């Protein structure tokens, strides 16, 4: 897929990947072997009929392609851009054995963009759903909440989404940068949802502004929790409270949600400095590093395992490298040093070596004694993961949580320990992916429908 050249794109926040032209899309789609076993579909967490939509693109039937995708995926323009296709559908593609696998993600993106650009939502606006089956509250507007709301609305429920922040979208809004996921796309998806009849209320912190019990008193018959894993983890090393140390969430929120890169046209400032060190190796770390590059800093990513273990999407790693991000593998931070005024000056790291594989398949790591070194740094961005926010659990009697604060649900019904309260997405799994959160949101919505129909029809056993 064509991209903005690195030397240009590091000076702007516009999207890096430019998308296929119809001819390019048709040419790429024509490479599909239409295997009978459909191995790619097994790699898709929501089971999209991939050969089906690819065939439609190859035939030039773009509307048909979109219709096929939409049967299983409500947010294709987003998933086409952010799914880790190389470990999902594309990793199963037979073409990949000898050469490049089919660019399924790019094709998904093409079809979705074509739909948005051609129809602008007008001709193919989803029908306004009449409701009538009952009222459901959806808490959180990330991919899990968004998908649950769309599905519940489609099933005939009156849905209200409650979001704490002033802009909906969860990580899609405050975490993933504009240059990877244009915010217009997100705004478009929310407009569609609202046209479909879903009500969106921002600035409501469930557990505080309204509790779960308040929601039931307001007449909601079920509650879906898609509150995500938004609480940033810290390193627990000396110097973490120095000025110039940010969590990736703070840094990305200032830039993406508050648009600090436009300061002083906007009111939210951000200090970064010349040398920025980013700790971590996931998508969050790549987003932070590439955002810092665009703000004019030179950036080093410090990651404790080696390149092949980086959990980020492959495309993001390649883009980061092209944009001049420097990587220090097998390195782990041990302390942050400040100047006399308390601003970050340097970060101490230690070299690591790999050991035997652990349960999750990745090798264990251990520090090499005596290998400490100092890297100069004006800012440090900590991107080592997030856990669920404790607010809802703290204020909802009877809501049980498990390891690391995840909300516990019954595996097939998605119901929490509180009757009528369901959950899916990062809040039940810990930080995962957009598509898994969407898949969970959709299944939970169906489980809510099942619950409400059985409850009103006959008593639940």
């Amino acid at each position, binding site marked *: 897929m064509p991209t903005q050249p690195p030397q240009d794109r590091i000076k702007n926040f516009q999207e890096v990947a430019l998308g296929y032209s119809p001819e390019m899309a048709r040419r790429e789609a024509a490479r599909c072997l239409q295997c009978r076993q459909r191995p790619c579909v097994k790699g898709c967490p929501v089971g999209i009929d991939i050969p089906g939509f690819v065939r439609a693109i190859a035939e030039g039937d773009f509307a048909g392609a979109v219709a096929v995708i939409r049967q299983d995926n409500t947010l294709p323009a987003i998933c086409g851009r952010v799914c880790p296709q190389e470990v999902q559908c594309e990793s199963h593609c037979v073409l990949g054995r000898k050469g490049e696998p089919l660019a399924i993600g790019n094709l998904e993106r093409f079809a979705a963009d074509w739909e948005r650009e051609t129809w602008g939502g007008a001709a193919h606006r989803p029908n306004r759903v009449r409701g009538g089956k009952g009222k459901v509250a959806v808490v959180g507007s990330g991919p899990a909440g968004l998908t649950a709301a769309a599905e519940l609305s489609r099933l005939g429920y009156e849905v209200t989404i409650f979001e*704490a922040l002033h802009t909906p979208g969860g990580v899609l809004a405050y975490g993933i940068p504009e240059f990877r996921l244009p915010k217009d796309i997100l705004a478009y998806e929310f407009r569609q949802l609202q046209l479909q009849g879903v009500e969106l209320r921002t600035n409501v912190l469930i557990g505080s502004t309204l509790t779960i019990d308040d929601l039931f008193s307001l007449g909601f018959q079920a509650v879906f929790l898609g509150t995500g894993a938004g609480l940033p983890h*810290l390193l627990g090393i000396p110097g*973490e409270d120095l000025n110039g140390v940010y969590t990736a969430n703070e840094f990305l929120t*200032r830039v993406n949600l508050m648009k600090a890169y436009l*300061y002083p046209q906007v009111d939210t400032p951000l200090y970064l400095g010349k040398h920025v060190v980013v700790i971590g190796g996931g998508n969050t770390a790549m987003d932070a590093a590439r955002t810092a590059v665009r*703000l*004019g800093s030179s950036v080093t990513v410090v990651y404790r395992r080696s390149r092949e273990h980086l959990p980020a999407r492959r495309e993001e790693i390649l883009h980061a490298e092209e944009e001049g991000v420097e990587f220090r593998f097998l390195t782990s931070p041990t302390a942050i040093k400040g100047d006399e005024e308390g601003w970050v000056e340097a970060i101490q790291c230690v070299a690591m070596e790999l050991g035997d594989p652990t349960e999750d398949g990745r090798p264990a790591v251990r520090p090499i004694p005596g290998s400490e070194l100092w890297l100069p740094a004006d800012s440090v961005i900590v991107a080592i993961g997030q856990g669920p926010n404790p607010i809802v659990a703290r204020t909802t009697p009877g809501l049980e949580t498990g390891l690391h604060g995840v909300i516990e649900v019954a595996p097939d019904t998605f119901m929490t320990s509180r009757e009528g309260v369901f959950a899916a997405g990062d809040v039940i799994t810990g930080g995962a992916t957009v598509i898994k959160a969407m898949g969970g949101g959709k299944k939970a919505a169906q489980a809510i429908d099942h619950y409400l129909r059985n409850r009103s029809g006959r008593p639940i056993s």
Partner: protein
Amino acid sequence: MFEILEKELLARDIWKYTIAAPEVAKKAQPGQFVVLRLHEQGERIPISISDWDRDAGTITLIVQAVGHTTKRLAEMDAGDHILDLLGPLGKPAVIEPVGTVACVGGGVGTAIIYPEARGHRQIGNRVVTLIGARSREHLFYQEELSAVSERVLVATDDGSCGHHGFVTDLLRQLIDDGLHLDQVIAVGPVPMMQAVSELTKSRGIKTIVSLNPIMVDGTGMCGACRVRVGGAIKFCCIDGPEFDAHEVDFSSLLRRLRLQERSAAGCTSAENGTEGCKSQCHN
């Protein structure tokens, strides 16, 4: 959108706003705050809830115009709307029957002390209130506080009203005069809270402070508000804003509050200072 219903000048640069926010008013407790954003390009800033009227569906905010957003708010009038307002945030103050409580307010912190003093009075504690300000024209809420306190003592830096000096002098005097205090609550500028904390630590009096670090979301998502308490890092917006004063690392808090200055001056740029800002800002 949240309408400003009334606006009143309480003291120099200190404005009182009555805002329509029925859901927040219904839930507000002493010690809690809101985060607001005035307009589409605005910053999110935290402001304490000084009062509320659950029936009328209103909350009262008392805001000192110190910087960009608070000055812009001061230019708004009754009838204008605040774009976003989220709350109530933070843990409510713990108000229990303890005996005698001294409420110490410095500057705009006096506004935050008010609902706490009232809360303590309502459950039967004896309340003595001490307020400090730069000068007479910066003082406010004396009457309101008198209505919920046994005594209100005033200190001004320039001696234009009450004691000439710091509010901590008054507190020391009170203790030295033999008043037994079971608890002290101090809200104000960091150096004032630190001074109170040092004084009460040496006298073994339990003390609560309400911390005011820089915040972004106010919901535990960003970690900007982290403070060092009892050697551990806490998120002020969800673990606080009130903490045991004797555990708080005030120097860390003071340092982190200066972040805003350099951020605002240095823009997002690699070079510190406004010049670097122009050359480095991309949009």
